[in-house]
């Protein structure tokens, strides 16, 4: 449990650095670090499938964001800083491999999916939720928390789109 709190603390630290730093590229790299630490936390919680999704999405988002900002903000490190960052990167990779080995140990053996949870949903879905549509009963009762997350993501993205596309109260380049 302690390592989970350490990981959570690191994530909060990374988020604070991402908000407070002045360089755009450093901010994006901090966001990436937060994502990778979250991936390690998922592995610690024995959820390799979510960890893989998190890792893939994080890498894709990081590539897109770095590609978008690299032209605008070029801070190049060289010399001793380079060696230090390579050592740090190796350490991070070792941490991820360690937790991945830990998380994958409790994955079911290949070819034997443990579908006990979904079987229970199918058997008891109707009597527990009263919904004839089993998909609805999973989405809005058994896994309603996931749906709440999806709604929150949708809400945030729509709010962001409307914020950028608004006219009222927007600063123009002329001031």
């Amino acid at each position, binding site marked *: 449990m302690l390592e989970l709190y350490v990981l959570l603390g690191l994530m909060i630290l990374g988020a604070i650095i991402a908000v407070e730093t002045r360089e755009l590229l450093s901010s994006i790299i901090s966001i990436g670090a937060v994502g990778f630490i979250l991936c390690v936390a998922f592995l610690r919680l024995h959820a390799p499938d979510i960890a893989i999704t998190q890792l893939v999405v994080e890498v894709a988002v990081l590539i897109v964001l770095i590609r978008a900002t690299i032209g605008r903000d070029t801070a190049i490190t060289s010399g001793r800083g380079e060696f230090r960052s390579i050592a740090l990167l190796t350490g991070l990779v070792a941490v991820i491999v360690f937790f991945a080995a830990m998380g994958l140990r409790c994955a079911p053996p290949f070819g034997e999916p443990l579908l006990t949870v979904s079987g229970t949903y199918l058997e008891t879905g109707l009597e527990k939720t009263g919904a*004839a*549509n089993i998909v609805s009963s999973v989405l809005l009762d058994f896994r309603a928390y996931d*749906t709440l997350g999806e709604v929150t993501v949708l809400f945030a993205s729509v709010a962001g789109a*409307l914020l950028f596309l608004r006219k009222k109260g927007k600063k123009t380049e002329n001031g």
Partner: protein
Amino acid sequence: MGEIVRNIVRIFAGFTLLFGVYIVAYGHITPGGGFAGGVLIGGSFILLTLAYGKKLALQKLSRSMSSTLDSLGALIFLFLALVGIAGGYFFLNFLPLGKPFHLFSAGIIPLCNIAIGMKVGASLFAVFIALAMVRVVKHEDGTTDYLEETDDTEIKQ
């Protein structure tokens, strides 16, 4: 848009909206649910916008109204989840389950579907209108401005 599109939209926009409402309301009995039905509801307003222009569609559902519905849907869903805490845990199905295969059954699931449908439909229309109203103007000195169209002409294809 052409006369054929206008006439077809005049007949079908209402039915599209009605079908969206049906998909939302019967989400716990038949396939579908809040997301699918909400997209249909938003789609009916988008159809109106494409065929008759922004002015008519915004008369039916204004921008502030769609923003309000968007936020309200999300808040109702969260509220339903939070009410469950009073009875034990987050997302507790606190309403009576009723008889299966009836419209008033399954506790809070239909209410959640309605909240999500409202949210998805309104937000889809709001984003579509926001995107349709922005015009990108590139100036000669390299700067770009994002202007909002004020005239009520039809959206160009």
